[in-house]
């Protein structure tokens, strides 16, 4: 896949003029909405920043629609649970958009414990000519009013406001790792380490528990839920992945409590690759349905796998993300990098998949041509509008010019979160506290 990519960077923390990375600015989730017009990011400080794509203008055809900041708001604040003496982090774990049904935009954002529904709407008119208030807003003495007038709406500078419409709290004992909007657009699910709950958007004070894998005795705990997602078309079907590298597909029509799966996806362990770390690297960090709904993609530490829903005993395709790390697992275990949770995404046509790696590298795999490419998201290596150059990691032997050796990789620069526009070749890549947006070059 020879993709010429035009680069355009947007620094998430443009509002502050910091040259160092403040921890609160670390981006923790990235998500396009269903049309691709909006792009939302959440960060460790509990803030949500929404970018909007510029309308393309005929005069500047060479400038494809660029993304500019549309709205910024504080979604979650740090909380303190007094009964448990615990601080609840405000970090936004996931954002999911609802499909647009009117002029306003709706999204779900969640931290470890609480999910919130936000409404983002525009205001471009304001009423003028009140009877009881004067122009500065001060109340007028009713006795002085001799005539009545009807206030008129006058245009004003566009204002975008975000308001919390629902707060779904107190339903998760453990840390929420996923939220997923159902295709019925009436319900959604939230998953933590041991349980999955089903919510109705209108009801905030109760939720249905649909999966519970907590053992009666916590000493018997050997497996946790790592990710969950609804099927894109079948509102009764969802999948969840586990720390043991398995995926379960459940049908809510079968029973109210979906502890028993309908399908169980697991690849048998490769005996030649067995090590103490086999289980850790098999732990699935992300699971995503294809847009078609026919496949699921899973990300574990070293690979991305594509599964056919009709074949449970092994994946259809396996892609090596950074196999050169296989001999370094002990060190990666030592520095905890082996526990990093990378996400993965499909492009709009399900023909290309993308995931992140270390050293600000991210990888794309073309499922049809079987070609893959490694790209880098960094300011030093790309100027605006420059074409991204493919990168290569040298595994051993002679290092060519422009190659980087495994030992030189910077493991603190990890790309965990990426997003792909639903229909165009535009991608968003979060590199620590910076957001990069790349799109196809227009000739």
């Amino acid at each position: 896949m020879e993709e010429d990519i035009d680069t355009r960077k947007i620094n998430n923390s443009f509002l502050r003029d910091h040259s160092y990375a403040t921890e609160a600015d670390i981006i923790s989730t990235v998500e396009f909405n269903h049309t691709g017009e909006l792009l939302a990011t959440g960060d460790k400080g509990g803030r949500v920043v929404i970018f909007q794509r510029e309308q393309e203008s005929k005069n500047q055809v060479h400038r494809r629609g660029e993304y500019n900041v549309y709205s910024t708001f504080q979604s979650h604040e740090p909380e303190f649970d007094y009964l448990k003496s615990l601080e609840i982090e405000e970090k936004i774990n996931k954002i999911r958009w609802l499909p647009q049904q009117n002029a306003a935009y709706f999204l779900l954002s969640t931290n470890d414990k609480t999910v919130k529904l936000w409404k983002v709407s525009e205001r471009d008119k304001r009423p003028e000519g009140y009877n009881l208030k004067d122009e500065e807003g001060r109340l007028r003495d009713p006795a002085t009013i001799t005539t009545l007038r009807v206030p008129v709406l006058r245009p004003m500078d566009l204002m975008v406001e975000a308001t919390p419409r629902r707060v779904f709290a107190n339903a998760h004992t453990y840390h929420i790792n996923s939220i997923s909007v159902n295709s019925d657009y009436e319900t959604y699910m939230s998953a933590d380490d041991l349980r999955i709950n089903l919510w109705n958007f209108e009801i905030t004070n109760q939720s249905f528990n649909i999966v519970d894998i907590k053992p009666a005795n916590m000493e018997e705990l050997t497996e946790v839920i790592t990710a969950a997602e609804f099927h894109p078309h079948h509102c009764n079907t969802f999948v969840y992945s586990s720390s043991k590298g398995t995926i379960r597909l459940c049908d809510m029509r079968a029973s109210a409590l979906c502890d028993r799966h309908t399908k169980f996806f697991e690849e048998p362990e490769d005996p030649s690759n067995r090590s103490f770390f086999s289980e850790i690297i098999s732990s699935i960090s992300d699971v995503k349905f294809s847009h078609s709904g026919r496949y699921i993609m899973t990300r574990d530490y070293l690979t991305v796998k594509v599964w056919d829903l009709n074949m449970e005993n092994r994946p259809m395709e396996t892609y090596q993300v950074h196999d050169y790390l296989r001999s370094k697992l002990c060190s990666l275990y030592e520095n905890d990098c082996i526990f990093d949770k990378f996400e993965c995404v499909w492009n709009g046509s399900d023909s290309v998949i993308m995931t992140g790696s270390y050293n600000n590298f991210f990888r794309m795999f073309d499922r049809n041509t079987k070609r893959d490419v490694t790209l880098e998201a960094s300011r030093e290596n790309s100027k605006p509008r420059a074409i991204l150059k493919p990168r290569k990691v040298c595994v051993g032997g002679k290092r060519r010019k422009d190659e980087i050796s495994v030992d030189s990789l910077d493991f603190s620069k990890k790309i965990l979160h990426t997003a792909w526009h639903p229909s165009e070749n535009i991608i968003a890549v979060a590199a620590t506290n910076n957001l990069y947006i790349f799109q196809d070059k227009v000739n």
Partner: protein
Amino acid sequence: MMLSKGLKRKREEEEEEKEALAVDAWWLDPSHPAVAQAPPAVASSSLFDLSVLKLRHSLRQSEPDLRHLVLVVNTLRRIQASMAPAAALPPVPSPPAAPGVADPLLASSDAALSASMASLLEDLSHIEGLSQAPQPLADEGPPGRPTGGAPPGLGALDLLGPATGCLLDDGLEGLFEDIDTSMYDSELWAPASEGLKPGPEGGPGKEEAPELDEAELDYLMDVLVGTQALERPPGLGR
């Protein structure tokens, strides 16, 4: 599984374990070859120490990352299994290790392994407050958790309510009567059942049916009597 459960580590073993750890501290020396190239038994021992350190660190967090915890524990199990393949560790191991193990280092490690694994996993169940056997809470609680002043017999109280690991269990309400828990009260959502879960354990989960207020009762009566058509009940969907 060769893990021991519910085994309190005795003082004598603690000394033994410290000795075993001290001997294996060579792995911290950077001049030594990479662990992966070391003989398996020795590598396992140093990996074991590293894993124990990670587990302890994880358990010391006020709210441990469950995924990290589970993965480290499972890795420890694998290492333990590989370190004592010949020694037949009984399902309920009792220190000292099984006789017949030639290597004295391994022999002392086995007992230490089992004992430390057991106590660490005990810590985990303390965190969740789910220990079936009544345990005094005064010992080994990770810092940050309110261990002081916990009433005795807390384990027994846990058995009353369903095992949710949440301090909001119904069984604890009586203990905290003087604390305002109104922010946690919710008629329609009972923490004990965490939602309407119609599982097989219908008993404990349903012990607190959602309370209906008068307006809703009136409305339901009207519906039943037929004077009112079924429509969206008041109070929901604000």
